[in-house]
Protein backbone atom coordinates (compact mmCIF):
# COMPACT_ATOMS: atom_id res chain seq x y z
CA UNK A 1 0.00 0.00 0.00
CA UNK A 2 2.59 2.65 0.90
CA UNK A 3 4.03 4.22 -2.16
CA UNK A 4 6.77 5.75 -0.08
CA UNK A 5 10.34 5.12 -1.04
CA UNK A 6 11.71 2.37 1.13
CA UNK A 7 15.15 2.21 2.59
CA UNK A 8 17.41 0.35 0.19
CA UNK A 9 18.07 -3.28 0.87
CA UNK A 10 14.74 -4.13 2.47
CA UNK A 11 13.63 -6.50 -0.23
CA UNK A 12 12.99 -10.04 0.96
CA UNK A 13 15.27 -12.84 -0.16
CA UNK A 14 14.08 -15.39 -2.69
CA UNK A 15 12.49 -18.52 -1.35
CA UNK A 16 13.98 -21.06 -3.72
CA UNK A 17 17.58 -20.28 -2.95
CA UNK A 18 19.50 -23.49 -3.03
CA UNK A 19 17.52 -25.21 -5.76
CA UNK A 20 19.05 -26.03 -9.12
CA UNK A 21 17.87 -23.58 -11.72
CA UNK A 22 15.78 -25.42 -14.20
CA UNK A 23 13.71 -22.44 -15.25
CA UNK A 24 14.67 -20.83 -18.54
CA UNK A 25 15.26 -17.16 -19.19
CA UNK A 26 17.84 -16.30 -16.54
CA UNK A 27 20.47 -15.35 -19.11
CA UNK A 28 18.12 -13.22 -21.15
CA UNK A 29 16.41 -11.57 -18.20
CA UNK A 30 19.65 -10.96 -16.35
CA UNK A 31 21.34 -9.64 -19.47
CA UNK A 32 18.50 -7.20 -20.07
CA UNK A 33 18.55 -6.16 -16.41
CA UNK A 34 22.28 -5.52 -16.45
CA UNK A 35 21.95 -3.44 -19.61
CA UNK A 36 19.08 -1.43 -18.12
CA UNK A 37 20.72 -0.88 -14.73
CA UNK A 38 24.19 -0.41 -16.17
CA UNK A 39 23.37 2.23 -18.76
CA UNK A 40 20.63 4.08 -16.94
CA UNK A 41 21.75 4.00 -13.30
CA UNK A 42 25.31 2.73 -12.79
CA UNK A 43 26.91 4.75 -15.59
CA UNK A 44 25.42 8.15 -14.69
CA UNK A 45 26.11 7.65 -10.99
CA UNK A 46 29.66 6.62 -11.83
CA UNK A 47 30.04 9.93 -13.63
CA UNK A 48 28.85 11.67 -10.48
CA UNK A 49 31.41 9.81 -8.39
CA UNK A 50 34.34 10.43 -10.78
CA UNK A 51 33.68 13.89 -12.15
CA UNK A 52 34.47 15.93 -8.99
CA UNK A 53 38.02 14.51 -8.98
CA UNK A 54 38.63 14.75 -12.71
CA UNK A 55 40.31 18.15 -12.49
CA UNK A 56 42.22 17.07 -9.39
CA UNK A 57 41.08 17.44 -5.84
CA UNK A 58 41.06 21.24 -6.02
CA UNK A 59 37.38 21.84 -6.97
CA UNK A 60 36.16 19.51 -4.24
CA UNK A 61 38.42 21.14 -1.67
CA UNK A 62 37.27 24.55 -2.81
CA UNK A 63 33.67 23.39 -2.53
CA UNK A 64 34.25 22.15 0.98
CA UNK A 65 35.48 25.61 1.95
CA UNK A 66 32.73 27.42 0.08
CA UNK A 67 30.74 29.11 2.82
CA UNK A 68 27.75 29.57 0.55
CA UNK A 69 27.60 25.85 -0.13
CA UNK A 70 28.02 24.96 3.53
CA UNK A 71 25.19 27.33 4.40
CA UNK A 72 22.99 25.73 1.73
CA UNK A 73 23.76 22.22 2.97
CA UNK A 74 23.12 23.25 6.56
CA UNK A 75 19.79 24.76 5.57
CA UNK A 76 18.74 21.70 3.57
CA UNK A 77 19.69 19.22 6.26
CA UNK A 78 18.41 21.34 9.13
CA UNK A 79 15.02 22.08 7.63
CA UNK A 80 14.63 18.48 6.42
CA UNK A 81 15.31 17.23 9.96
CA UNK A 82 12.96 19.77 11.55
CA UNK A 83 10.22 19.01 9.03
CA UNK A 84 10.56 15.28 9.63
CA UNK A 85 10.45 15.90 13.37
CA UNK A 86 7.29 18.00 13.09
CA UNK A 87 5.75 15.22 11.03
CA UNK A 88 6.17 12.63 13.79
CA UNK A 89 3.37 13.86 16.11
CA UNK A 90 1.23 14.94 13.15
CA UNK A 91 1.70 11.60 11.40
CA UNK A 92 1.12 9.67 14.62
CA UNK A 93 -2.15 11.50 15.19
CA UNK A 94 -3.36 10.86 11.64
CA UNK A 95 -2.27 7.21 11.65
CA UNK A 96 -3.90 6.69 15.04
CA UNK A 97 -7.19 8.18 13.84
CA UNK A 98 -7.10 6.02 10.74
CA UNK A 99 -6.37 2.73 12.47
CA UNK A 100 -7.63 2.87 16.05
CA UNK A 101 -10.77 5.00 15.89
CA UNK A 102 -13.95 4.80 13.89
CA UNK A 103 -13.64 8.30 12.54
CA UNK A 104 -16.51 9.24 10.22
CA UNK A 105 -15.10 9.86 6.75
CA UNK A 106 -12.03 7.72 7.36
CA UNK A 107 -11.97 6.63 3.72
CA UNK A 108 -11.72 10.24 2.55
CA UNK A 109 -9.01 11.04 5.08
CA UNK A 110 -7.12 7.94 4.01
CA UNK A 111 -7.26 9.02 0.37
CA UNK A 112 -6.14 12.56 1.21
CA UNK A 113 -3.03 11.32 3.03
CA UNK A 114 -1.54 10.34 -0.33
CA UNK A 115 -2.17 13.76 -1.81
CA UNK A 116 1.36 15.13 -1.29
CA UNK A 117 2.60 12.08 -3.23
CA UNK A 118 0.10 12.58 -5.98
CA UNK A 119 0.57 16.31 -6.41
CA UNK A 120 3.45 17.05 -8.81
CA UNK A 121 6.18 19.00 -7.00
CA UNK A 122 5.92 22.09 -9.21
CA UNK A 123 2.19 22.26 -8.49
CA UNK A 124 2.87 21.90 -4.77
CA UNK A 125 5.51 24.60 -5.05
CA UNK A 126 3.41 27.34 -6.65
CA UNK A 127 0.40 26.36 -4.53
CA UNK A 128 2.16 26.61 -1.18
CA UNK A 129 3.88 29.84 -2.25
CA UNK A 130 0.48 31.35 -3.07
CA UNK A 131 -1.27 29.91 -0.02
CA UNK A 132 1.34 31.18 2.43
CA UNK A 133 2.36 34.24 0.42
CA UNK A 134 1.77 37.74 1.81
CA UNK A 135 -1.71 37.86 0.24
CA UNK A 136 -2.49 34.16 0.56
CA UNK A 137 -5.41 32.53 2.37
CA UNK A 138 -3.13 31.53 5.23
CA UNK A 139 -0.22 33.89 4.59
CA UNK A 140 -2.24 37.08 5.09
CA UNK A 141 -3.67 36.22 8.53
CA UNK A 142 -0.28 34.87 9.62
CA UNK A 143 1.39 38.08 8.47
CA UNK A 144 -1.01 40.04 10.69
CA UNK A 145 0.28 37.97 13.59
CA UNK A 146 3.78 38.91 12.57
CA UNK A 147 4.68 35.49 11.17
CA UNK A 148 6.25 35.51 7.72
CA UNK A 149 6.23 32.10 6.09
CA UNK A 150 6.88 32.59 2.40
CA UNK A 151 10.45 33.45 1.37
CA UNK A 152 11.87 32.45 4.76
CA UNK A 153 13.40 29.23 6.11
CA UNK A 154 10.03 28.62 7.81
CA UNK A 155 8.46 28.31 4.36
CA UNK A 156 11.10 25.78 3.36
CA UNK A 157 10.35 23.70 6.41
CA UNK A 158 6.64 23.92 5.75
CA UNK A 159 7.01 22.68 2.18
CA UNK A 160 9.23 19.81 3.33
CA UNK A 161 6.75 18.89 6.07
CA UNK A 162 4.00 18.76 3.44
CA UNK A 163 5.84 16.38 1.12
CA UNK A 164 7.13 14.25 4.00
CA UNK A 165 3.87 13.70 5.89
CA UNK A 166 2.62 10.64 3.95
CA UNK A 167 5.92 8.83 4.56
CA UNK A 168 5.40 9.01 8.32
CA UNK A 169 1.68 8.13 8.25
CA UNK A 170 2.12 5.19 5.90
CA UNK A 171 5.03 3.78 7.92
CA UNK A 172 3.15 4.01 11.23
CA UNK A 173 -0.18 2.69 9.95
CA UNK A 174 0.61 -1.04 9.63
CA UNK A 175 2.40 -1.10 13.00
CA UNK A 176 -0.50 0.60 14.76
CA UNK A 177 -2.97 -1.73 13.09
CA UNK A 178 -1.06 -4.79 14.29
CA UNK A 179 -0.69 -3.48 17.83
CA UNK A 180 -3.25 -5.50 19.84
CA UNK A 181 -5.73 -3.24 21.64
CA UNK A 182 -5.75 -5.78 24.47
CA UNK A 183 -2.38 -4.33 25.50
CA UNK A 184 -4.03 -1.07 26.49
CA UNK A 185 -6.83 -2.87 28.28
CA UNK A 186 -4.41 -5.09 30.16
CA UNK A 187 -2.32 -2.10 31.24
CA UNK A 188 -5.45 -0.29 32.42
CA UNK A 189 -6.54 -3.31 34.42
CA UNK A 190 -3.11 -3.57 35.98
CA UNK A 191 -3.57 -0.03 37.17
CA UNK A 192 -1.43 1.97 34.75
CA UNK A 193 -2.12 5.66 34.31
CA UNK A 194 -2.84 7.11 30.91
CA UNK A 195 0.62 8.57 30.61
CA UNK A 196 2.20 5.29 31.67
CA UNK A 197 0.16 3.49 29.02
CA UNK A 198 1.40 5.86 26.36
CA UNK A 199 5.08 5.91 27.34
CA UNK A 200 5.46 2.30 28.51
CA UNK A 201 3.00 0.35 26.39
CA UNK A 202 2.20 2.17 23.19
CA UNK A 203 5.30 4.16 22.33
CA UNK A 204 8.06 1.51 22.56
CA UNK A 205 6.73 -0.76 19.78
CA UNK A 206 6.22 2.34 17.63
CA UNK A 207 9.78 3.63 17.95
CA UNK A 208 11.28 1.66 15.02
CA UNK A 209 8.45 2.78 12.76
CA UNK A 210 8.84 6.36 13.97
CA UNK A 211 12.56 6.18 13.18
CA UNK A 212 11.86 4.76 9.73
CA UNK A 213 9.21 7.38 9.00
CA UNK A 214 11.56 10.11 10.14
CA UNK A 215 14.35 8.68 7.97
CA UNK A 216 12.20 8.49 4.86
CA UNK A 217 10.80 11.99 5.29
CA UNK A 218 14.27 13.34 6.06
CA UNK A 219 15.91 11.66 3.05
CA UNK A 220 13.18 12.99 0.78
CA UNK A 221 13.53 16.47 2.28
CA UNK A 222 17.27 16.78 1.70
CA UNK A 223 16.96 16.52 -2.06
CA UNK A 224 13.55 18.14 -2.50
CA UNK A 225 13.54 20.88 -5.11
CA UNK A 226 10.27 21.65 -6.91
CA UNK A 227 8.01 22.06 -3.92
CA UNK A 228 10.53 24.27 -2.12
CA UNK A 229 12.04 26.77 -4.56
CA UNK A 230 8.86 28.77 -5.10
CA UNK A 231 8.32 29.42 -1.39
CA UNK A 232 11.97 29.58 -0.36
CA UNK A 233 13.06 33.07 -1.36
CA UNK A 234 16.36 31.61 -2.57
CA UNK A 235 18.69 34.15 -0.97
CA UNK A 236 22.27 32.90 -0.64
CA UNK A 237 23.28 32.23 2.98
CA UNK A 238 19.69 32.62 4.12
CA UNK A 239 17.09 30.69 2.19
CA UNK A 240 19.03 28.93 -0.57
CA UNK A 241 18.72 25.12 -0.44
CA UNK A 242 21.50 22.80 -1.62
CA UNK A 243 19.62 21.42 -4.68
CA UNK A 244 19.08 24.98 -5.90
CA UNK A 245 22.80 25.67 -5.54
CA UNK A 246 23.47 22.69 -7.84
CA UNK A 247 21.20 24.30 -10.44
CA UNK A 248 22.86 27.71 -10.02
CA UNK A 249 26.37 26.25 -10.39
CA UNK A 250 25.22 24.47 -13.55
CA UNK A 251 23.85 27.70 -14.95
CA UNK A 252 27.28 29.23 -14.30
CA UNK A 253 28.75 26.26 -16.26
CA UNK A 254 30.65 25.33 -13.12
CA UNK A 255 30.23 21.56 -13.57
CA UNK A 256 32.91 20.72 -11.01
CA UNK A 257 31.24 22.90 -8.39
CA UNK A 258 27.77 21.55 -9.15
CA UNK A 259 29.01 17.97 -9.02
CA UNK A 260 30.79 18.57 -5.74
CA UNK A 261 27.59 19.83 -4.12
CA UNK A 262 25.59 16.97 -5.64
CA UNK A 263 28.16 14.41 -4.56
CA UNK A 264 28.25 15.70 -0.98
CA UNK A 265 24.43 15.74 -0.86
CA UNK A 266 24.27 12.15 -2.05
CA UNK A 267 26.95 11.02 0.38
CA UNK A 268 25.34 12.79 3.32
CA UNK A 269 21.93 11.38 2.41
CA UNK A 270 23.33 7.84 2.34
CA UNK A 271 25.11 8.36 5.61
CA UNK A 272 21.98 9.55 7.34
CA UNK A 273 19.97 6.68 5.84
CA UNK A 274 22.54 4.21 7.14
CA UNK A 275 22.51 5.77 10.61
CA UNK A 276 18.73 5.72 10.71
CA UNK A 277 18.45 2.13 9.54
CA UNK A 278 21.02 1.07 12.15
CA UNK A 279 19.06 2.97 14.78
CA UNK A 280 15.85 1.31 13.65
CA UNK A 281 17.43 -2.13 13.90
CA UNK A 282 18.74 -1.32 17.36
CA UNK A 283 15.33 -0.10 18.50
CA UNK A 284 13.49 -3.13 17.19
CA UNK A 285 16.08 -5.51 18.64
CA UNK A 286 15.43 -3.95 22.05
CA UNK A 287 11.85 -5.08 21.62
CA UNK A 288 12.78 -8.61 20.74
CA UNK A 289 11.27 -8.44 17.28
CA UNK A 290 11.51 -6.57 14.02
CA UNK A 291 8.81 -4.49 12.47
CA UNK A 292 7.95 -4.84 8.83
CA UNK A 293 7.72 -1.10 8.58
Amino acid at each position, binding site marked *: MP*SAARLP*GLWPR*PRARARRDALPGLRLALGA*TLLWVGLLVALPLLALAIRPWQDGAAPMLAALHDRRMLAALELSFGSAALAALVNLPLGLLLAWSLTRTRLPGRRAVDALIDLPFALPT*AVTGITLATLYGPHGWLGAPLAKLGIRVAFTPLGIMLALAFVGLPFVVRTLEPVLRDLPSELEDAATMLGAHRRQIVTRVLLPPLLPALATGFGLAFARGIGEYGSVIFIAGNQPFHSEIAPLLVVIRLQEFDYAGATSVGFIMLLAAFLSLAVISALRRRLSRGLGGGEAA
Partner: protein
Amino acid sequence: MSRILLGLATYAIVAVVLLLPPTLVFVEALRQGLPTALATLSDPDARAAIRLTLEMTALSVVVNTAFGILAAWALAKFSFPGRGVLLVLIELPLSVSPVVAGLVWLLLFGSQGWWGEALARHGITIAFATPGILLATIFVTFPYVARTLLPLMQRQGRDAEEAALLLGAGFWQILWRVTLPGARWALLSGILLTTARAMGEFGAVSVISGHIPGLTETMPLHIETLYNGYQTIAAFAMAALLALMAMTTVALRSILERLADKAGTNKAGDWA
Protein backbone atom coordinates in the same frame (compact mmCIF):
# COMPACT_ATOMS: atom_id res chain seq x y z
CA MET B 1 -14.17 13.33 25.19
CA SER B 2 -10.58 12.76 24.17
CA ARG B 3 -11.91 10.73 21.24
CA ILE B 4 -13.84 13.76 20.01
CA LEU B 5 -10.83 16.04 20.43
CA LEU B 6 -8.69 13.57 18.50
CA GLY B 7 -11.26 13.44 15.72
CA LEU B 8 -11.49 17.23 15.55
CA ALA B 9 -7.71 17.57 15.48
CA THR B 10 -7.56 15.04 12.63
CA TYR B 11 -10.16 16.93 10.60
CA ALA B 12 -8.38 20.23 11.27
CA ILE B 13 -5.00 18.90 10.11
CA VAL B 14 -6.47 17.24 7.06
CA ALA B 15 -8.43 20.36 6.12
CA VAL B 16 -5.61 22.88 6.54
CA VAL B 17 -2.62 20.80 5.49
CA LEU B 18 -4.04 18.46 2.87
CA LEU B 19 -7.30 19.87 1.56
CA LEU B 20 -6.48 23.55 1.23
CA PRO B 21 -3.64 23.29 -1.33
CA PRO B 22 -5.53 21.36 -4.05
CA THR B 23 -8.57 23.58 -3.47
CA LEU B 24 -6.42 26.64 -4.07
CA VAL B 25 -5.13 25.21 -7.35
CA PHE B 26 -8.64 24.98 -8.79
CA VAL B 27 -9.87 28.28 -7.31
CA GLU B 28 -6.89 30.14 -8.79
CA ALA B 29 -7.28 28.42 -12.15
CA LEU B 30 -10.97 29.27 -12.37
CA ARG B 31 -10.64 32.82 -11.05
CA GLN B 32 -11.86 34.26 -14.37
CA GLY B 33 -14.06 31.36 -15.31
CA LEU B 34 -13.59 28.07 -17.06
CA PRO B 35 -13.43 29.48 -20.62
CA THR B 36 -10.44 31.68 -19.73
CA ALA B 37 -8.67 28.78 -18.06
CA LEU B 38 -9.29 26.52 -21.05
CA ALA B 39 -8.14 29.24 -23.42
CA THR B 40 -4.75 29.42 -21.68
CA LEU B 41 -4.39 25.66 -22.14
CA SER B 42 -4.86 25.92 -25.90
CA ASP B 43 -1.93 28.32 -26.25
CA PRO B 44 0.63 26.73 -28.64
CA ASP B 45 3.38 26.55 -25.99
CA ALA B 46 0.96 25.03 -23.50
CA ARG B 47 -0.15 22.44 -26.03
CA ALA B 48 3.44 21.62 -26.91
CA ALA B 49 4.19 21.16 -23.20
CA ILE B 50 1.20 18.83 -22.74
CA ARG B 51 2.21 16.79 -25.79
CA LEU B 52 5.84 16.53 -24.64
CA THR B 53 4.80 15.42 -21.15
CA LEU B 54 2.53 12.71 -22.58
CA GLU B 55 5.25 11.50 -24.94
CA MET B 56 7.98 11.40 -22.28
CA THR B 57 5.65 9.64 -19.85
CA ALA B 58 4.59 7.01 -22.37
CA LEU B 59 8.18 6.26 -23.41
CA SER B 60 9.46 6.06 -19.82
CA VAL B 61 6.62 3.73 -18.89
CA VAL B 62 7.38 1.44 -21.84
CA VAL B 63 11.11 1.23 -21.08
CA ASN B 64 10.80 0.79 -17.32
CA THR B 65 7.95 -1.69 -17.64
CA ALA B 66 9.63 -3.92 -20.21
CA PHE B 67 12.93 -4.01 -18.35
CA GLY B 68 11.24 -3.98 -14.95
CA ILE B 69 9.38 -7.20 -15.77
CA LEU B 70 12.56 -8.94 -16.88
CA ALA B 71 14.48 -7.66 -13.84
CA ALA B 72 11.75 -8.83 -11.46
CA TRP B 73 11.79 -12.25 -13.16
CA ALA B 74 15.54 -12.63 -12.83
CA LEU B 75 15.62 -11.38 -9.24
CA ALA B 76 12.53 -13.20 -8.00
CA LYS B 77 12.97 -16.61 -9.56
CA PHE B 78 16.74 -17.06 -9.40
CA SER B 79 19.58 -16.53 -7.01
CA PHE B 80 22.98 -15.53 -8.33
CA PRO B 81 26.07 -13.74 -7.06
CA GLY B 82 25.65 -9.98 -7.02
CA ARG B 83 21.89 -10.15 -6.68
CA GLY B 84 21.97 -7.91 -3.60
CA VAL B 85 24.05 -5.29 -5.40
CA LEU B 86 21.57 -5.26 -8.28
CA LEU B 87 18.68 -4.73 -5.87
CA VAL B 88 20.42 -1.77 -4.28
CA LEU B 89 21.28 -0.29 -7.70
CA ILE B 90 17.66 -0.59 -8.84
CA GLU B 91 16.42 1.21 -5.72
CA LEU B 92 19.15 3.82 -5.80
CA PRO B 93 17.40 6.38 -8.04
CA LEU B 94 14.76 6.83 -5.33
CA SER B 95 17.29 8.16 -2.84
CA VAL B 96 18.86 10.59 -5.29
CA SER B 97 17.77 14.21 -5.32
CA PRO B 98 15.83 15.06 -8.51
CA VAL B 99 18.37 17.76 -9.25
CA VAL B 100 21.21 15.24 -9.08
CA ALA B 101 19.16 12.90 -11.28
CA GLY B 102 19.32 15.60 -13.95
CA LEU B 103 22.91 16.57 -13.23
CA VAL B 104 24.29 13.07 -13.87
CA TRP B 105 23.06 13.19 -17.47
CA LEU B 106 24.71 16.57 -18.01
CA LEU B 107 27.97 15.03 -16.79
CA LEU B 108 27.68 12.50 -19.61
CA PHE B 109 26.04 14.48 -22.37
CA GLY B 110 26.38 18.18 -21.50
CA SER B 111 28.68 20.53 -23.41
CA GLN B 112 31.36 19.92 -20.75
CA GLY B 113 30.30 16.32 -20.24
CA TRP B 114 32.28 13.22 -21.15
CA TRP B 115 30.67 12.62 -24.53
CA GLY B 116 28.65 15.77 -25.16
CA GLU B 117 31.04 17.38 -27.62
CA ALA B 118 31.88 14.19 -29.47
CA LEU B 119 28.21 13.45 -30.00
CA ALA B 120 27.50 17.05 -31.00
CA ARG B 121 30.08 16.72 -33.78
CA HIS B 122 27.94 13.92 -35.17
CA GLY B 123 24.86 16.06 -34.90
CA ILE B 124 23.46 14.26 -31.87
CA THR B 125 22.19 16.44 -29.04
CA ILE B 126 20.96 14.84 -25.85
CA ALA B 127 21.30 17.55 -23.22
CA PHE B 128 18.85 20.46 -23.54
CA ALA B 129 16.78 18.35 -25.92
CA THR B 130 14.10 15.68 -25.66
CA PRO B 131 16.48 12.68 -25.36
CA GLY B 132 17.91 14.21 -22.18
CA ILE B 133 14.43 14.82 -20.78
CA LEU B 134 13.57 11.20 -21.51
CA LEU B 135 16.71 9.89 -19.78
CA ALA B 136 16.01 12.01 -16.70
CA THR B 137 12.38 10.84 -16.57
CA ILE B 138 13.39 7.20 -16.93
CA PHE B 139 15.91 7.63 -14.13
CA VAL B 140 13.47 9.08 -11.58
CA THR B 141 10.81 6.45 -12.30
CA PHE B 142 13.30 3.62 -12.65
CA PRO B 143 12.40 1.16 -9.85
CA TYR B 144 8.61 1.39 -9.55
CA VAL B 145 7.53 -1.49 -11.81
CA ALA B 146 10.34 -3.80 -10.69
CA ARG B 147 9.79 -3.18 -7.00
CA THR B 148 6.01 -3.70 -7.09
CA LEU B 149 6.41 -6.90 -9.12
CA LEU B 150 9.31 -8.45 -7.26
CA PRO B 151 7.78 -9.25 -3.85
CA LEU B 152 4.69 -10.71 -5.52
CA MET B 153 6.70 -12.81 -7.98
CA GLN B 154 8.75 -14.11 -5.09
CA ARG B 155 5.67 -15.12 -3.14
CA GLN B 156 4.40 -16.95 -6.20
CA GLY B 157 7.39 -19.24 -5.93
CA ARG B 158 8.43 -21.33 -8.93
CA ASP B 159 6.08 -24.30 -8.81
CA ALA B 160 3.67 -23.08 -11.46
CA GLU B 161 6.56 -22.06 -13.72
CA GLU B 162 8.28 -25.41 -13.30
CA ALA B 163 5.05 -27.23 -14.06
CA ALA B 164 4.67 -25.14 -17.21
CA LEU B 165 8.25 -25.98 -18.15
CA LEU B 166 7.56 -29.70 -17.78
CA LEU B 167 4.53 -29.27 -20.00
CA GLY B 168 6.83 -27.90 -22.67
CA ALA B 169 6.42 -24.14 -22.35
CA GLY B 170 9.28 -21.83 -23.30
CA PHE B 171 10.49 -18.72 -21.47
CA TRP B 172 8.15 -16.18 -23.08
CA GLN B 173 5.20 -18.53 -22.77
CA ILE B 174 5.86 -19.07 -19.08
CA LEU B 175 6.25 -15.33 -18.52
CA TRP B 176 3.14 -14.36 -20.49
CA ARG B 177 0.82 -17.23 -19.62
CA VAL B 178 1.86 -18.22 -16.11
CA THR B 179 3.78 -15.56 -14.21
CA LEU B 180 2.34 -12.28 -15.42
CA PRO B 181 -1.38 -13.20 -15.22
CA GLY B 182 -0.90 -13.86 -11.51
CA ALA B 183 0.93 -10.56 -11.12
CA ARG B 184 -1.26 -8.38 -13.33
CA TRP B 185 -2.58 -6.18 -10.49
CA ALA B 186 0.89 -5.47 -9.19
CA LEU B 187 2.11 -4.80 -12.72
CA LEU B 188 -0.69 -2.33 -13.39
CA SER B 189 -0.11 -0.69 -10.04
CA GLY B 190 3.59 -0.23 -10.83
CA ILE B 191 2.77 1.18 -14.25
CA LEU B 192 0.34 3.69 -12.76
CA LEU B 193 2.89 4.80 -10.18
CA THR B 194 5.50 5.24 -12.93
CA THR B 195 3.00 7.26 -14.95
CA ALA B 196 2.11 9.57 -12.06
CA ARG B 197 5.75 10.25 -11.20
CA ALA B 198 6.84 10.67 -14.82
CA MET B 199 4.16 13.28 -15.57
CA GLY B 200 5.02 15.39 -12.56
CA GLU B 201 8.83 15.23 -12.57
CA PHE B 202 10.27 18.70 -12.24
CA GLY B 203 13.76 18.92 -10.76
CA ALA B 204 15.55 16.36 -12.92
CA VAL B 205 13.93 17.54 -16.12
CA SER B 206 14.48 21.17 -15.19
CA VAL B 207 18.25 20.65 -15.00
CA ILE B 208 18.61 18.98 -18.38
CA SER B 209 15.80 20.53 -20.42
CA GLY B 210 17.15 23.96 -21.24
CA HIS B 211 13.66 25.46 -20.79
CA ILE B 212 12.92 26.25 -24.41
CA PRO B 213 9.19 27.09 -24.55
CA GLY B 214 7.36 25.07 -27.17
CA LEU B 215 10.32 22.72 -27.59
CA THR B 216 11.79 21.33 -24.39
CA GLU B 217 9.26 22.44 -21.80
CA THR B 218 7.18 19.75 -20.16
CA MET B 219 4.03 20.64 -18.23
CA PRO B 220 5.77 21.17 -14.86
CA LEU B 221 8.45 23.35 -16.48
CA HIS B 222 5.83 25.38 -18.33
CA ILE B 223 4.03 25.92 -15.02
CA GLU B 224 7.24 27.41 -13.64
CA THR B 225 7.72 29.68 -16.65
CA LEU B 226 4.13 30.92 -16.48
CA TYR B 227 4.23 31.43 -12.72
CA ASN B 228 7.51 33.33 -12.81
CA GLY B 229 6.10 35.44 -15.65
CA TYR B 230 3.14 36.41 -13.42
CA GLN B 231 0.67 34.62 -15.69
CA THR B 232 -1.05 33.27 -12.62
CA ILE B 233 -4.24 32.00 -14.19
CA ALA B 234 -2.41 30.20 -16.98
CA ALA B 235 0.05 28.72 -14.46
CA PHE B 236 -2.70 27.42 -12.22
CA ALA B 237 -4.80 26.19 -15.15
CA MET B 238 -1.86 24.07 -16.27
CA ALA B 239 -1.22 23.07 -12.66
CA ALA B 240 -4.86 22.02 -12.28
CA LEU B 241 -4.69 19.90 -15.42
CA LEU B 242 -1.44 18.25 -14.33
CA ALA B 243 -2.75 17.71 -10.79
CA LEU B 244 -5.92 16.13 -12.19
CA MET B 245 -3.90 13.81 -14.39
CA ALA B 246 -1.60 12.73 -11.56
CA MET B 247 -4.34 12.46 -8.93
CA THR B 248 -6.52 10.38 -11.26
CA THR B 249 -3.62 8.02 -11.84
CA VAL B 250 -2.94 7.66 -8.13
CA ALA B 251 -6.66 7.24 -7.36
CA LEU B 252 -6.94 4.54 -10.03
CA ARG B 253 -4.10 2.78 -8.34
CA SER B 254 -5.76 2.73 -4.90
CA ILE B 255 -9.06 1.54 -6.42
CA LEU B 256 -7.13 -1.18 -8.17
CA GLU B 257 -5.40 -2.20 -4.96
CA ARG B 258 -8.71 -2.41 -3.13
CA LEU B 259 -10.17 -4.55 -5.93
CA ALA B 260 -7.13 -6.81 -5.90
CA ASP B 261 -7.38 -7.17 -2.14
CA LYS B 262 -11.00 -8.19 -2.47
CA ALA B 263 -10.25 -10.65 -5.23
CA GLY B 264 -7.42 -12.01 -3.12
CA THR B 265 -5.03 -11.98 -6.07
CA ASN B 266 -2.42 -9.99 -4.21
CA LYS B 267 -2.41 -12.18 -1.15
CA ALA B 268 0.58 -14.27 -0.27
CA GLY B 269 0.24 -17.99 -0.68
CA ASP B 270 -2.11 -17.67 -3.60
CA TRP B 271 0.02 -20.11 -5.54
CA ALA B 272 1.26 -22.27 -2.75
